[in-house]
């Protein structure tokens, strides 16, 4: 650097050596992760227990560990009642999901996109089933079927399940419709699409993730429901009511097998969805 230039230039200060800096790691840094780890262990304890006892070489009741066996997994239907109850659960869940998802999606679209009278009344009617304790819904339906003289059975279970799934479908799909840019549909119409074509080629594909999520939620709610089913099942048994009834006299290990299998299946679906979603995002360079 030349001496003549010093007058006109503001010099940077001479380089000084900085000391390495390390902040002491505080209590808060590891306390939260430690707590979360313990909390997750706690959350998973009953699941692990149920899974382990699906391999128990049990007799009538599956409480004491008697040794390891694959028999329960290989012979699920050795306990015919469990198998039938499980089949009923699938049938009820599938049918109720189909009806609730269809009706709920229609309502969700109407709520976001259209003006109509009695909006607040309809919103209340959709909200109340979620704010009502299950036992009240159950008793109400049972009272209605009793008054109308309807024979309880698979039909009444499906009718009941569709009812309580409906509101949850509306909420889930509505969230998706709200984030949908109306300009996309306008673009579809601008590009010579008839209303029907625009719905099936633009709106529906964009809503599909929401609809699928709603259907999965609906099936899960239906599959695990006990209280409403128990009040309205008559002599028909679903998986939860079977477990409830046999809880007094001992539950066969096959019930643990079914619960574990459903658990693994559900977790697998969720994980696969997560992974494909993540890899798609990566491909699109969103992350």
């Amino acid at each position, binding site marked *: 650097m030349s001496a003549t230039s010093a007058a006109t230039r503001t010099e940077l200060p001479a380089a000084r050596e900085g000391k390495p800096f390390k902040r002491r790691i505080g209590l808060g840094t590891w306390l939260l992760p430690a707590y979360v780890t313990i909390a997750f262990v706690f959350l998973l304890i009953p699941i692990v227990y149920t899974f382990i006892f699906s391999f128990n070489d049990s007799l009538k009741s599956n409480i004491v560990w008697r040794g390891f066996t694959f028999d329960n997994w290989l012979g699920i239907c050795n306990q015919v009642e469990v198998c039938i109850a499980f089949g009923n659960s699938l049938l009820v869940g599938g049918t109720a999901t189909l009806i609730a998802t269809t009706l709920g999606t229609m309502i969700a679209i109407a709520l976001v996109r259209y003006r109509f009278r009695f909006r607040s009344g309809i919103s209340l009617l959709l909200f109340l089933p979620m704010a009502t304790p299950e*036992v009240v819904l159950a008793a109400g339906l049972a009272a209605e079927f009793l008054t109308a003289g309807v024979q309880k059975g698979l039909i009444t279970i499906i009718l009941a399940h569709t009812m309580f799934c409906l509101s949850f479908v509306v909420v889930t799909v509505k969230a998706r419709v709200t984030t949908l840019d109306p300009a996309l549909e306008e673009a579809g119409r601008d590009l010579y699409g008839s209303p029907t074509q625009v719905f099936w080629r633009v709106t529906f594909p964009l809503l599909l993730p929401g609809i699928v999520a709603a259907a999965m939620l609906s099936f899960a709610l239906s599959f695990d429901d006990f209280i409403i089913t128990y009040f309205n099942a008559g002599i028909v048994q679903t998986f939860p009511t079977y477990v409830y009834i046999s809880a007094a006299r001992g539950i066969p290990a096959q019930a643990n097998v079914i619960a574990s299998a459903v658990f693994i299946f559900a977790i697998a679906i969720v994980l696969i969805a997560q992974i494909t979603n993540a890899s798609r995002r990566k491909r699109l360079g969103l992350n």
Partner: protein
Amino acid sequence: MAFTAFSTGTAKEQAPRRKSKIALLLLLPGILYLLLFFLVPLVALIATSLQEPVPFGDFGQYQTAFRWQNYVEVITTYGDQIIRSFTYALLATIFALLFSYPIAYFIGVKCRQWPLLQNLLLVLVIAPFFISFLLRTLAWKSILADESFIVTGLKALSLMAPDAHFTGTPAAVVFGLTYNFIPFMTLPIYAALERLDTRLLEAGRDLYAKPATSFFKITVPLSMAGIVSGVLLTFIPAAGDYINASSRFLGGSSTSMIGNVIESNFLVSLNYPAAAALSIILMSIILVLVTAYVKRSGTEDLL
């Protein structure tokens, strides 16, 4: 997701809604369904709650009447169970909130840089959902049974009296309720915290707020919508639950809740008017509490 069912969420800018006949077509089937299988049952329930026994009739035969004394009778008979239901539900809600908030905070705020970990932890939170509600409660019953190693261990360490039990006690019922509804509490709080702008926390620290002050003055108020949803999603089903309190599961003879007496009246003693009256009472109390709570926490405009 449904877990935001009770949240307020700011309405996004939407195109003006149209008025059209299509709306009616879209709404009609679903709304009719709800009228037929939600509203009519409620009316049926009210009607049933006022019925009187058929004179000289069979067991379980009732006729239309206006017997309001049914309400007085169930309140005097089942006052304990009604109070117990709300006490247990309140305790379970508080414990679930205290248990869930740190988890939701960890997943929603601390794990933001790792979306994959975030998703994995969320799956773990909802994992208990996927194993049958009844079976996981029964699993706890076995794990906490008198002969289980946890209870025998606690007794050996003199942390528990030698003749004490865990299952069958109110503590076990509250424990079960708490455990079973934790995901309902965690997910909405997570949803709220996930949207929390951490730059606001930096602003708080910059403005002389210690970590604890930042938490209570900024983080908690900004996640209030999630807390409200979580509290409602936990409290409502917990108050009406009768699995955990049932003596086949975690409860005992002295822990029965309003759900248990509705069940036994409806399905065992076939006393439909009493069961219906109890249901109406339960629903009314919950609606009053929910309305008051939502008004107080300043998050209105549900759904």
